[in-house]
């Protein structure tokens, strides 16, 4: 792929833009709360777009096109099943406690509801996880830019990291959030044309359906048994594992996204954040997954000369050529985009990387400053001190991510493993929150031991089962039809064991006084109604609208 001068101009304009936004917001930062929490003053349309943009990293973009080519329309389950219901639940039922409790982070809520050790456990695992995920995605981007454009790995990694550092250092969370919205627009602008062009070339949706096997163009029809669909997952594993445990664990407890909703300017806006975000979220598959599906159809079509219109990219693995799905997105761009729009597409890719990284860095910042530094290293200092610590943590966080990116470059296998572990480390957490928020008898010890048991159970399940020749470190008890199915079932086991142990331990340990739980638990919290909200701004109305749309999409592509 060759870039023309105009493509560089577009890329440079974008870089200037994000730095400019950081510069304009620098004066807004005078307390640690401004820097780390946006002073709770961001309008709802911004928080809701940032809510989905922080999750839409470069890896997601590349990975969704790759999965589209590999699994077909079933990939949309990661949105229509694996995100929308959880986002609705978060807005309707969980946000009142997060926002209303005045907690500054997810770990801090755990401290208020349970105790210090539960908070510590969550804060440390979260901090480590954000650094590594940011590093891994940085590595993925560096690798891709090197492969596609021949750019030097170090230069592209360091330059993009420096820009992210500059704008988050200047304007803190507000700057990260504002830029995420711009980045979201840019991702849509850069990739929607690709989806349209690829789809039209493949003969529209009907053309795609006629060329692909039926199990790649139907999302539910072939879910009866794992052997019938390309993902190798059966319906229970999909709905319970992905749709319930993993997605609720991610969207409802991951501070990376929760932080965006917490920055909203009112309770009503905080509750509406995930609900409003769900609307664009459910149409993202048409931009990020559809190109991958269309690519498979294009690979079966011939031009006038007899050659295929497009060939799925290959890579050498262990001496044999295998399909390299991760390159589907960029090879499609090269096939469809002339200079100009190519620059926009590439900028969109950079934008997605930056929004993902800034999301990780700002979440790491807040959790480190408030939940680790202020709780364990230095308590009771004046706020100015924590503002400085927050700023310094931004630098340290970026530096650590760069370190993780290089680590990923040298120890590829370790990173695969880590990524896999992160996939289910959050799974038991949702059980803790569910019981904590809706069952006033749940106790601190119950939560802590439940969480530990859930995590251990996840590791054991992984170690005792085999999928696609991987896993089974401790023995071989069961074989899963695919890694995906294994992942979903690990999550189910982790959630269930955490839930059971929390309930069990809670019944034998001392319960906290109800007066201490006000604002933290359902039934002991008065949820404020926004009397002056217009009818379509009411969370319940929005939630029903979102769910109906999601059901329609599921049926349409069933």
């Amino acid at each position, binding site marked *: 792929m060759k870039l023309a001068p105009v493509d560089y101009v577009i890329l440079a304009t974008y870089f200037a833009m994000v730095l400019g936004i950081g510069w304009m917001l620098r004066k807004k930062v005078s307390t640690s709360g401004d820097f780390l929490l946006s002073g709770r003053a961001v309008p709802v349309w911004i928080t809701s777009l940032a809510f989905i943009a922080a999750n839409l990293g470069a890896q997601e973009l590349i990975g969704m096109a790759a999965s589209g080519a590999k699994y077909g329309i079933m990939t949309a389950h990661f949105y229509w099943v694996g995100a929308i219901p959880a986002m609705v639940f978060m807005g309707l039922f969980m946000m009142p406690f997060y926002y209303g409790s005045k907690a500054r982070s997810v770990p801090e809520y755990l401290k208020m509801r349970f105790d210090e050790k539960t908070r510590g456990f969550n804060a440390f695992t979260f901090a480590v996880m954000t650094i590594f995920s940011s590093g891994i995605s940085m590595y993925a981007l560096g690798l891709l830019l090197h492969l596609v454009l021949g750019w030097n790995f170090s230069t592209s990694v360091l330059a993009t990291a420096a820009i992210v550092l500059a704008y988050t250092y200047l304007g803190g969370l507000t700057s990260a959030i504002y830029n995420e919205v711009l980045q979201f627009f840019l991702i849509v602008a850069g990739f929607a*044309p690709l989806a349209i062009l690829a789809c039209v070339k493949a003969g529209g949706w009907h053309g795609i359906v006629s060329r692909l096997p039926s199990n790649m163009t139907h999302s539910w029809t072939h879910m009866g048994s794992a052997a019938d669909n390309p993902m190798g997952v059966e319906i229970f594993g999909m709905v319970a594992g992905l749709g319930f445990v993993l997605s609720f664990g991610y969207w409802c407890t991951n501070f990376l996204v929760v932080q965006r909703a917490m920055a909203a300017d009112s309770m009503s806006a905080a509750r509406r954040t995930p609900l409003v975000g769900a609307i664009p979220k459910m149409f993202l598959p048409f931009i990020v997954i559809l190109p991958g599906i269309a690519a498979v159809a294009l690979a079966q079509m011939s031009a006038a000369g007899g050659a295929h219109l497009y060939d799925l990219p290959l890579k050498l693995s262990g001496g044999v050529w295998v399909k390299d799905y991760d390159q589907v997105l960029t090879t499609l761009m090269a096939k469809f985009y002339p200079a100009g729009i190519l620059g926009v597409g590439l900028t969109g890719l950079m934008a997605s990387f930056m929004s993902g990284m800034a999301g990780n860095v700002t979440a790491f910042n807040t959790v480190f400053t408030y939940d680790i530094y202020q709780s364990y290293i230095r308590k009771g200092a004046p706020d100015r001190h924590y503002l400085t610590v927050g700023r310094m943590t931004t630098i340290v966080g970026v530096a650590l991510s760069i370190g993780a990116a290089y680590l990923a470059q040298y120890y590829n296998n370790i990173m695969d493993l880590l990524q896999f572990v992160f996939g289910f480390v959050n799974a038991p957490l949702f059980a803790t929150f569910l019981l904590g928020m809706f069952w006033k008898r749940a106790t601190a010890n119950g939560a802590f031991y439940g969480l530990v048991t859930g995590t251990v159970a996840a590791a054991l399940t992984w170690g005792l089962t085999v999928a696609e020749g991987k896993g089974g470190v401790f023995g071989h008890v069961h074989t899963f039809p695919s890694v995906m199915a294994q992942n979903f079932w690990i999550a189910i086991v982790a959630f269930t064991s955490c839930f059971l142990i929390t309930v069990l331990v809670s019944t034998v340990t001392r319960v906290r006084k109800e007066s201490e739980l006000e604002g933290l638990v359902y039934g002991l919290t008065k949820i404020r109604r926004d009397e002056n909200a217009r009818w379509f701004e009411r969370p319940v109305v929005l939630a029903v609208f979102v769910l109906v749309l999601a059901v329609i999409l599921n049926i349409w592509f069933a």
Partner: protein
Amino acid sequence: MLDLRVPSGWFFTLLGVILVGMGLITPDARAALTDFNVNLYSGIAMLIFGLFLLLMARLAAGKSR
């Protein structure tokens, strides 16, 4: 507080102008599989989006004054 619609509005207006310009100057610029002037059409869309954001910001500023 900065109204985000202003900078992003200008950004997309600028992108739109660049792409429409490309589409008009080199109407035959094509990648291997493109059949039509993708720069022109996506440029027009971005231009409209950018101007829309600027208009919304202008209306909001007028209301708050």
